[in-house]
Every structure is written in structure tokens, then in C-alpha cells.
């Protein structure tokens, strides 16, 4: 049979990629090659945080699962790992919420509708939504940690009928730092979910709770022994939240965290994001608590 010279190599690379669990949405040849996406919408969320909606210049939309991330390449600035924060059932709009903290994210903040950026992904392990089936769900977010949890909240609400109580606990720095404020209000207005928001510092006319997000856990609204919990925020916050959930009776194997490390290649080759025996980019960012508990308590891992 007559085949093109590269076909055999491509087929072998595909097999290798499959073995390495490179996402099926990408061909084996291009996990390192960004696809061009156009900014369709640019919105400022907080003083240093913004959300962009992307659409591919060509080809099919990028499908993803909640909790996964993309590598976003800004021409002339570099590449950064950013979690996807849109609805997984509406992949035609690829949504990323970013905090401008470094050179690349600041360059990204300066972009506007119509600008083109490169996208590689999606990468990483997803939030296991199905682990919640038949249980109550507790989602605990700290600060900008709400962004990687938003696709999960969409997915949870999409399978609402299979779940018990659904509780979202969110801790922000101040009332002005509440991310996705309109959407959080809308969730709060639903009859089928409980939403509590607390702030570390009350400002203005805030009349809601003030204090650590861990305190919201004590307010209950879920049956701890029959609960799946998903946590994202600064590492210290996640440690304390995880402990508070465990103390209450949540099972360690139904408790999930999303870790943040310095992801560069996103496919487990470069080693920048190594965390103990794992690479956060491909073995994470979502980890089951009981598998990382000992590492979580150690520094410099």
C-alpha cells in the first residue's frame, strides 16, 4: 500500500501520545504547537483580574472537562498556564479568567477584542464530577480559586438531578473582590443550591459574614459522611479547608484539591511543575486528597 512518508511516523506518534494520555482533542504532532484563537470578548472582573472569551480562527472548538487548563501564548511575551473557567457544555466560547501578576499576564491584560493569542490544551486532570453522584456536593473557593471551579459548578448544575444538596462556600478578600459577582448572586437565588460568601475584610455596606471560609463549613447544609468536596484557592487555605472538612466527617477519597505549580510544557516532559512523584500539569492539577495529604503538609516539595 502506498502511504506518504510521514504517515507511519505520525501514526506511531499518535500511539505514543495515546499511551502518554495526551488529550484526544489534540493530534500527536502538536501538543507543543499553539492554535490561534481570537479574543471575542474582554471583560474586567476586578482591579487586577479579567476574563477573555476566545474562539478558534479555524477548526473546531476546543472541548474540555471542568478543572483542565490551557497554555496561553501571548506573542512577544511568553506562555502561561491558565485554567478554563467557562461552561464545558458550551465550548464554542473558550473562557479564561486571569489575574495580572507577571509579565505575560500583564501583556495579556493589555490585549483587546480582535487580538489573536495562541492556545495549547486542554491539559491536566479534571474535577471528577461523577464522584458526586448520589452524594451532597460542597464546593469551597478562595479568592480567584473560584475561576477553575466555575466549570465544575456548571457541570454540577447540569447533573443536578443525580445529586443531593449542593453548597458553594466562597471566601474573598473584600466585598469588592468577589469574582463573577452577578453569577454568584444568580446561583444564590436558586432554590436548588446554597451559597455562602464571606470576606476577610468588610468594607462599605457589606452586611454578610466576615471571617475565614473555613468558618462557613461549620454552618453545614450538607451530610458530611455522604459528601463529595471540591476545593480551590491558595494552598494554605486549601489545607485548612481540607482539615475542616475531614474533621466534619468528609471522606478523604471524596475530597479533591486543585494544585498550582509552575507549569511550562504542560505534558510532563520539562519537569518544572514536579511535586513529589507527580507532575502537576499531567497528574494534576486536580488531586484526590488522600493521595497527596502527606505531601501537602511538607514545604519545599
Amino acid at each position, binding site marked *: 500500500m502506498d502511504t506518504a512518508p510521514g504517515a507511519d511516523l505520525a501514526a506511531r506518534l499518535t500511539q505514543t501520545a495515546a499511551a502518554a494520555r495526551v488529550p484526544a482533542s489534540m493530534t500527536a504532532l502538536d501538543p507543543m504547537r499553539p492554535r490561534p484563537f481570537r479574543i471575542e470578548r474582554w471583560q474586567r472582573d476586578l482591579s*487586577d483580574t479579567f476574563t477573555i472569551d476566545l474562539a478558534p480562527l479555524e477548526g473546531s472548538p476546543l472541548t474540555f472537562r471542568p478543572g483542565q487548563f490551557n497554555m496561553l501564548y501571548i506573542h512577544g511575551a511568553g506562555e502561561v498556564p491558565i485554567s478554563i473557567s467557562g461552561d464545558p457544555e458550551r465550548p464554542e466560547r473558550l473562557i479564561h479568567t486571569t*489575574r495580572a*501578576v507577571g509579565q505575560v499576564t500583564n501583556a495579556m491584560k493589555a490585549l483587546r477584542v480582535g487580538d489573536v493569542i495562541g492556545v495549547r490544551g486542554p491539559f491536566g486532570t479534571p474535577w471528577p464530577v461523577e464522584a458526586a453522584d448520589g452524594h451532597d456536593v460542597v464546593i469551597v473557593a*478562595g*479568592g*480567584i480559586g473560584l475561576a477553575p471551579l466555575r466549570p465544575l459548578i456548571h457541570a454540577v448544575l447540569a447533573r443536578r438531578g443525580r445529586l443531593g444538596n449542593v453548597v458553594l462556600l466562597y*471566601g*474573598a*478578600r473584600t466585598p469588592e*473582590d468577589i469574582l463573577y459577582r452577578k453569577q454568584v448572586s444568580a446561583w444564590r437565588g436558586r432554590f436548588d443550591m446554597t451559597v455562602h460568601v*464571606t470576606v*476577610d*475584610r*468588610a468594607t462599605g455596606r*457589606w*452586611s*454578610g*459574614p*466576615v*471571617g*475565614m471560609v*473555613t*468558618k462557613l463549613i*461549620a*454552618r453545614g447544609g450538607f451530610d458530611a459522611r455522604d459528601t463529595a468536596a471540591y476545593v480551590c*484557592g*491558595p494552598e*494554605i*487555605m486549601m489545607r*485548612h479547608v481540607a482539615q475542616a472538612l475531614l474533621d466534619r466527617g468528609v471522606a478523604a477519597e471524596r475530597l479533591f484539591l486543585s494544585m498550582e505549580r509552575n507549569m511550562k510544557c504542560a505534558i510532563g516532559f520539562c519537569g518544572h511543575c514536579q511535586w513529589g512523584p507527580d507532575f502537576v500539569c499531567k497528574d494534576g492539577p486536580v488531586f484526590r486528597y488522600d493521595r497527596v495529604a502527606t505531601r501537602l503538609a511538607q514545604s519545599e516539595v
Partner: protein
Amino acid sequence: MVSLQDMDDLLNAHPFFAGLGPKHLDELAGCARNERFDAGDYIFHEGGMADRFYILRHGQVAVEVKVPHKGSVVLETLHEDDTLGWSWLVPPHHWTFDARAVSLVRAISLDGVCLREKMETDHELGFHLMARFVPVMGERLRAARLQMLDLYAPPA
């Protein structure tokens, strides 16, 4: 007015007093009364005589401190099932902060003078109360330390 038996039942049902025997619950009920505060009412003021503590049954209380040029700053809020106040336990029995009802608050208050007298003669009661207050203090201290870290601040 709530009868002593009703108060006994109220205290018995509260997680803070879980595990106390009938004798001690009776002693507590003898020092307890129902309280109600409307939104905006101050429950106590910094420096005031700390002669009681509160078990919140409903509503939200802000623990505040007055800061020059900034007005009242809310340090934390307390809610249903939380306890409010421990300055009654140890001399000089003065409140350290203000406490203000953010919403309608229903609470049970326990008279500190009454309790301190009972704890003098019944050290076991004192032990049981201390064993319940220390974890609350520890939890508040932990929360305050984490709040102090300003975890969600932009990276420096």
C-alpha cells in the same frame, strides 16, 4: 418567659453543651435567660463589664473595633450556634471589642457572675465550661491568624 425546664431543653439541644449531665445543665439553666436584639443594637461595648456570654440561636453578630478615621471595623461575624464572649471568664471581666446585631438576633445569655459563683463551688462545672471555651478560643485564634496572612492578596 421561658420556664426552667424549657431552658434546660434549649441548652441540652445546643452543640456547645453537648455531653453535659442533667445536674450541670440545671446549674446553667439557673443562670440563663432569653435575649433578643434588633438589627443595629449593640450587645456590648469595648471596655464594658463582661458579665455574661451568649449562645446565638438566630441571626448575625458583628464583632467590631472602633478605628480612628475609619469608624467601626468588623473583625468577624458570628452566627447561629456560635458563642459570643469569654471575657466574663477571667478578670478583669471587661469586653475587649464591641458586639453589634447585624440582623435580628435571638440568643440565650448566661450570667457570668452567677456562673462564676457556681464554678467556685463546683469545679467540675468549671472544667466542663473551660473544656468547651478553649476550643472556641483556639478556633478564633486560628481564623484570626489566617485572616492576618491576607491569603487572597495579589502576590507581592
